[in-house]
C-alpha cells in the first residue's frame, strides 16, 4: 500500500480564519476591536463567551473591560441564558462562540429566553458555513435555515471587515435579539468607507447588465471578484448584497431581480432554507419567474480539509462563480 501522503496534499487548518487571498487588504479581529471601542461609549455593554474567546476575536474587549467580560465555559445553553438574564437587568449582552453550538445546541434558549422575551442579546456566531475545514461538527451549514424559523430574531450575514465593524455598532441600537455570522481572524477589507450598513436593506455592490447575482456573507465578495473576472470575458454581472437575512429586503431583491433575464443566488450555506430559498419564495410570491442558478452547499455533512480543497470540491469557489456568470451553467 502506498504512503497516503504521496498522493494527498494540503490539510485542515486552524479555527475559522478566512483564507488569504493575494492582493487583499485584511484587518485583524474587526469584531473584538470595534466592540472594545463601542464599549467605551456604552457602559451597559457586557461580553460573554463559552470557551471560545480566542477563536471568536472577543479578546480585545476582554482586555479592555475585564470586569464586564464573562467566560462561562463550554456551556452554550448557559451562555444564552446568562445573556438573557443580563439583558433583563439593563445590559446589552454580546455573546460569542461557534455558530454550530449556538444553533444546534442552544436553539430553545435563543428562541424562548432571548427572542420571545425580546432580550437585548447580540449573538456573534463564529465559523459560518465552510469558513472552517474542521468537519461537520464545526461547520454551520444550516444555521440560516434554523434561525429563520425563530420569530422576532434579526439575522445578519456581513460580507467583510468594513461591514462587520458597522454591524457591531449598529446592533447595539437594534432592539431585541440579533444573530450575526461573525468573520474572524484576518478579515478582508473590501468595501470602501462610504459603505453604510442599513438593517433590512440589500445593497448593490457592483453594477452590471448581463446577469444579476444576489448573495450574502463573504460570498458577496467572491461574487464581486468573479464579476470582475467575467467582465474581462465580456459578461457584466451586477451584485446585490443581502446583509440582513431577517428582516429580508423583499422589495429590494424584487426590484433588482426584475432588471435581469437571469439570476444567480450565492451563499455560504446550504442552498436549502437559506438565501436561495428566501429569494425563490419572494420571486414566486411576486409572480416573477426567471432562470436562476444556486451557488451554495449541497444537503450533506462535509469532510475535514483545507478551505480551498472543500470549496473546490463542493463548488463554491471562484471558478464556480465565473462558470455560472459566463457559461450560464
Amino acid at each position, binding site marked *: 500500500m502506498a504512503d497516503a501522503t504521496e498522493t494527498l496534499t494540503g490539510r485542515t487548518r486552524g479555527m475559522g480564519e478566512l483564507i488569504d487571498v493575494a492582493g487583499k487588504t485584511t484587518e485583524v479581529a474587526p469584531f473584538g476591536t470595534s466592540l472594545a471601542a463601542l464599549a467605551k461609549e456604552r457602559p451597559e455593554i*457586557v461580553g460573554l463567551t463559552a470557551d471560545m474567546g480566542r477563536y471568536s476575536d472577543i479578546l480585545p474587549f476582554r482586555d479592555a473591560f475585564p470586569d464586564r467580560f464573562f467566560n462561562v465555559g463550554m456551556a452554550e445553553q448557559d451562555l444564552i441564558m446568562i445573556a438573557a*438574564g443580563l439583558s433583563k437587568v439593563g445590559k446589552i449582552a454580546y455573546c460569542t462562540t461557534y455558530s454550530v453550538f449556538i444553533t444546534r445546541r442552544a436553539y430553545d434558549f435563543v428562541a424562548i429566553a432571548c427572542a420571545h422575551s425580546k432580550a437585548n442579546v447580540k449573538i456573534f456566531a463564529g465559523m459560518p458555513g465552510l469558513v472552517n475545514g474542521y468537519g461537520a461538527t464545526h461547520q454551520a451549514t444550516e444555521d440560516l435555515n434554523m434561525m429563520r424559523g425563530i420569530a422576532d430574531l434579526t439575522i445578519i450575514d456581513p460580507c467583510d471587515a468594513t461591514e462587520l465593524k458597522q454591524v457591531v455598532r449598529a446592533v447595539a441600537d437594534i432592539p431585541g435579539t440579533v444573530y450575526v455570522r461573525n468573520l474572524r481572524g484576518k478579515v478582508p477589507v473590501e468595501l470602501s468607507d462610504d459603505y453604510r450598513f442599513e438593517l433590512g436593506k440589500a445593497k448593490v455592490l457592483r453594477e452590471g447588465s448581463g446577469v444579476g447575482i444576489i448573495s450574502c456573507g463573504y460570498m458577496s465578495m467572491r461574487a464581486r471578484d468573479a464579476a470582475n473576472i467575467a467582465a474581462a470575458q465580456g459578461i457584466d454581472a451586477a451584485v446585490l448584497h443581502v446583509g440582513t437575512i431577517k428582516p429580508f429586503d423583499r422589495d429590494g431583491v424584487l426590484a433588482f431581480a426584475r432588471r435581469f433575464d437571469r439570476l444567480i443566488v450565492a451563499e455560504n450555506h446550504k442552498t436549502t432554507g437559506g438565501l436561495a430559498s428566501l429569494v425563490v419564495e419572494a420571486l414566486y410570491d411576486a409572480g416573477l419567474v426567471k432562470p436562476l442558478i444556486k451557488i451554495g452547499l449541497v444537503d450533506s455533512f462535509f469532510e475535514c480539509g483545507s478551505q480551498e480543497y472543500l470549496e473546490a470540491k463542493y463548488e463554491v469557489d471562484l471558478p464556480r462563480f465565473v462558470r455560472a456568470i459566463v457559461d450560464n451553467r
Partner: protein
Amino acid sequence: MMSRNHPPEHPDIGRLKERALNLRRLMLNMASGKGEGYIAQGLGIADCLAALYFHELRYDPDAPDWKDRDRFVLSTGHYAIAMYAVLAEAGYLPVTELASYGLNGSSLPMSTFDDTPGVEMVGGSLGHGLGQSVGMAIGLRLDGSPARVFNELSDGELQEGSTWEAAMGAATFKLDSLVAIIDCNGIQADGPVTVMIDPVADKFTAFGWEAVEIDGNDMQALVTALANARTPNGKPKAIVLRTIPGKGVPTLERRDRAHFVRVANDEWDELKAELEIHHG
C-alpha cells in the same frame, strides 16, 4: 416608597400561614369549574410563596419595574396558577382578574409570559430559570444593586442538563445574591420522578453551593432557611423543599397522578370545603 415590601425583623408565622391559606383559596377558585390543571403543584408551593412574598422579598407592586427589586424567577411556567395567586395577594394584580386564568385571550395564561406584571420570565420550557437568574445576579452586582435573585425550580427540572450548566456558573461567579428554591414534590408528567435526582442538596453542595434541605410546607423552617440564605459567604444558596403536591386538600394529597389533576366540576366545592376543614 411606603408601599415597598420590606421583610420585618421578626416573622409572624401565624400571619404567614394565613397568607398561604389565602393563596390556596385563590388557586382553588381559579381552578374551579375548569376541570383540570396544575393545582397540586400550586398548593404544594403555597407556603414557600407566602414566606417569600410576605417576609423575604423586596418589591413594589405599584412599580413592577423598580430596578432594585428582588427578582423572583418562576422557572416552572406551569405553576402559573400559584404565581398569579401570590401576585394578586401581593397587590400586583386585581383579585377579580384571577377568574380569567387559563381562558382564551386572558392576560393570565396557563403558562407564564413575561408581560404579566411581576412575572420575570417566559416560563414553560424547563431548564431556563437558573441560567437567566445567574445573568440577572451578575448584572445587578455589576450595577452595585442590593437586589437579590430567587429562582424557583423543580425536581423534575433537575433532569434538564442546562440547570447544571447554570449551577456551575453560579458558583464560579460567586453569586452570593442568588437563591435557588428547588421544589421537590416527587412528581413529573409521567408519574413519580423517574431519574435519580437525590441527594439534591449534596449535589448542589458538590457544585460549590451552600445547600439546605427542609420541609417545604413548614412555615417556620421556610423563614429560617430564607434568613440563613442572607449570609454572605461567596456562594449561591440552594434551599431544597420537600413538598406535598395538593397540600392542604387531603383528597388531592392522596392522588397518585397529581402532576396534572383532573377534577369533576361538582368536586370543586368539596375540595374547597376540605381546605377550610383541614386548616381549621
